[in-house]
């Protein structure tokens, strides 16, 4: 199974999930088997006036993750992740990164076929 990128507030397995994808503080890149993880900072996306979701998608792509678990994904980030063959589990909120991974492993996360947020300014 490929690595999973989870949008998070802090670099820890017990961090709460950050519901926004593009403007998340960072992503935990988790191996779902061993729960070993690395952290990628997404702060540069937070500072962008536009294109934060696309930038975040690029960050995920470089991390090698094949799956994203997050709250809301806009249309451009969705297009970008999909183009790279990265699967998206969305509407995941009010839980920790660890809980999200467990939920995913239990087969309780459906992979999205379309974005669940309107884009900004378009």
């Amino acid at each position, binding site marked *: 199974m490929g690595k999973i990128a989870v949008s998070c507030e802090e670099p820890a397995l017990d961090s709460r999930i950050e519901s926004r994808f593009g403007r998340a503080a960072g992503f935990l890149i988790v191996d779902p088997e061993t729960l070993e993880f690395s952290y990628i900072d997404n702060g540069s996306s937070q500072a962008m006036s536009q294109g934060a979701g696309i930038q975040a998608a690029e960050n995920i792509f470089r991390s090698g993750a094949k799956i994203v678990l997050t709250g809301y994904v806009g249309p*451009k980030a969705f297009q970008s992740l999909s183009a*790279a063959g990265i699967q998206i589990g969305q509407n995941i909120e009010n839980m920790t990164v660890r809980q999200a991974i467990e939920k995913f492993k239990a087969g309780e996360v459906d992979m999205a076929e379309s974005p669940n947020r309107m884009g900004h300014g378009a």
Partner: protein
Amino acid sequence: MKVAVASGKGGTGKTTVSASLVSVWQSPVIAMDLDVEEPNLHLFINPSITGERTANMEIPVADESRCNQCGKCAELCQFKAISLMGKIILTYPEMCHGCGGCLAICQEGALSPGYRELGEILWGGTDYGEFLMGRLRVGEAMSPPLMRAVKIRLAEMTSSAGTDVIIDAPPGVSCPAVNAVMDSDVILLVSEPTPFGLYDMKLAHQAFSLLNKPMAAIINRAGLGTSEMADYCISSGLEILAEIPYDRRIAEAYAAGHIIADVDSDFRKLFMVLADKIKAIAGAAESREVWNG
């Protein structure tokens, strides 16, 4: 001479003032609506439209078969209009600001120019002179590129010297508002004596002061609220060129699509005096420039 009728707060009377000014202007004048997101000057001066054209912006179109994934275009773009995901090059046309940098930097011929429609430019004539406006395409997020295209049309219309331009500007102090006033010779700030009006007036005054242009205030709905607006203008050296009274007849005329200067002779006189004062301010600024070389 170009006169920009601007405001910080929306709904303070820019179009009301623009339409009346155009109607009393004594020399050749072009009425230009640069509030391209929601143009409405035409509703008051009823132009007959004689020409129109579509404004486009150049955007990149990617040919993946020629792309060598060097990533220079994606790195250059500050707006994320191009993204490279491994071997896949993605373009987001609606994010593009049209700088052309990606087209210039690509050495592989993988990017070619395409177009995004910005909106339309319409022109014609009214009882008072010429008319020009831009109308942003629904869904288009950026108005300054269309505003620049409208100004190119204006330059074609003003090839003969001596035609004045009255610009109905968009509200606010962000890029569209600055784009509307930056080429003008005089900036008029239309405001109303309310807390919101005062707050936004200060923002606009501060923002446009950086342009170093003659600037003056018009207080609309005078008599409403407090004297804080007038106090601010006086203390900050902003001359009040006119005070338009808070009068039900004005609201009725506006709602019927009429020009306020046509309501009665007092209002007509108010705008004629205003026009003379604007010309005096512009003239004084011009002679200062000559004096200073």
